[in-house]
């Protein structure tokens, strides 16, 4: 089974500021820690405050200065599916993702935020000095040796998120990367 990204909002402005938190919906399944823009509200009846998540536009390659980037941060409730049935509360943290067309919580990363992400939120596990927005439609961050002209995270350290292994003795940690939001 594919692992999904795990996000720890270690210290984020959105925790205390309502304006940085929005309900959103995406036509694609997302992981926590995925990034996107919120260009407009859905306009669907009953979704008065729900915003439509869209991948970073192609025009913003490495230069998202005109693009307001948001991040998925839904409380994790792992689930298992069998056919059309969804069984909540089963599975592990790396099994969790946000199903397509499901309203979820998005927050606005702000300069100075400390965010911890696992490798599945990035294009690879090869670290670099920075992580910038990918414009390839996959909602992920890209490792980058240089600061982007827009949304940029500064790599702080490689750390871990505790999770019991269950399948090997002596393991039980998911490798994670801690970042500081440098340009929001």
């Amino acid at each position: 089974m594919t692992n999904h990204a795990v996000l720890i909002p270690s210290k984020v402005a959105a925790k205390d500021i309502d304006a940085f938190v929005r309900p959103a919906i995406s036509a694609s399944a997302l992981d926590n820690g995925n990034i996107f823009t919120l260009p407009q509200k859905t306009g669907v009846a009953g979704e008065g405050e729900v915003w439509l998540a869209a991948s970073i536009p192609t025009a913003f390659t490495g230069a998202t200065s005109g693009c307001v980037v948001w991040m998925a941060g839904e409380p994790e409730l792992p689930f298992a599916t069998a056919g059309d049935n969804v069984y909540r509360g089963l599975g592990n943290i790396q099994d969790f993702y946000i199903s397509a067309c499901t309203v979820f919580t998005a927050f606005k990363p702000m300069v100075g935020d400390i965010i911890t992400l696992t490798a599945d939120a990035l294009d690879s596990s090869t670290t670099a000095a920075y992580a910038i927005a990918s414009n390839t439609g996959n909602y992920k961050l890209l490792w980058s040796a240089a600061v982007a002209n827009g949304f940029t995270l500064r790599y702080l350290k490689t750390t871990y998120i505790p999770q019991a292994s269950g399948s090997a003795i002596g393991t039980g940690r998911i490798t994670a990367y801690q970042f500081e939001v440098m340009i929001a």
Partner: protein
Amino acid sequence: MTIKLPASVLNFAAGDTVLFDNFVDYFNHYRSENGTKQFAYIKTDKEGKPISLAQKEEALKPMLLREISKRSGVDVSSMPAEVMSTHPLVGWSVANIASQLIDAVLPSTMVEGTSAYAEIKTIGYGEAGIFDIKSRDLFAVTKVGKLGMREAELQKGYMKQVTLTPEGHMITVGVSLFRVLSGQESLADFTVKALRSIETEMTKDIYTAFATAMAALDTDATTGLKVTGYTQQDLTILAQKVSAFSGGAKPIVLGTKVALANILPEDPNYRYDLSSPFVTLGYVRTIAGIDTFEIPQIANWENPFSTYVSDSYLWIVAPGTDKLIKCVIGGAMVSHVAGQFDSALLLQNASFVKFWKAGLITSSVAASIDLS
């Protein structure tokens, strides 16, 4: 040791546990006479005379016939054995009483041999075992200023859910109901043999999961949990690691009798007398404050007379913490006996199906010393 009858057997017995209590006593007597370990069993009859295993086996026969009559609703003494042996309900009763007798003792006997490193859990028929394994990590602590900050960086830890789905295991043996009902074959003896076959296979599965996990331990000199070659210092270092990462739980050393015999003090200036455990047991009971625990050897029936548990390893575990290996037993044993005239050759087969699965599911820490 007193065996507590499982709920499924008590339900089956419906208050009449005479047969099951006597079978448990017979089995304890049997394995005390056929093994190295002594179990609690009745040694004298009501008049104080010694009672043998053979006498108990004879005493079980009428009890089994009574139980067969009760279960089948057919008085098996009302007609000749050769007639009763063709009754379909009698065949069903014989097989399923044997199954229930096996279920009466099986979980307990498994726990005895593998208790230091395995947990046995009985689940319902057709179900999967679900284990919620907690992370053993602690949270990181940071220095801060003098109440100038409301919160430190948020940390979270997660449990892991692991499932274990029992697999079917089957035995089919030739049995003659006529010989059972006429007293020429001992159903008790037959049941014990089936029981020991299943017990051995299940123990092998549990041990294999354990040995495989221990073989995969990291060998890094500083952060590893596995070393090659016994020294008292290495043993103590590994025991310290296991204890420290298990919240201070007491570690013990596991191994076969042969493996444990390698544990000796670092200083060669030791002496032992004939009454010391090293002579009477074959190994020291305690080294550097760490107790030793002998794992019973398992016969490898596929390759006589080799044995299954490796004599080349010492394993250090903290049995008070989450057990390394989980084994789920899926429901009661199901069995059936073919009718006497179902086979063109008049072969009468009894089949037993038992579901179980063992696997490494843990967040505990353990260490290994390779003696080879």
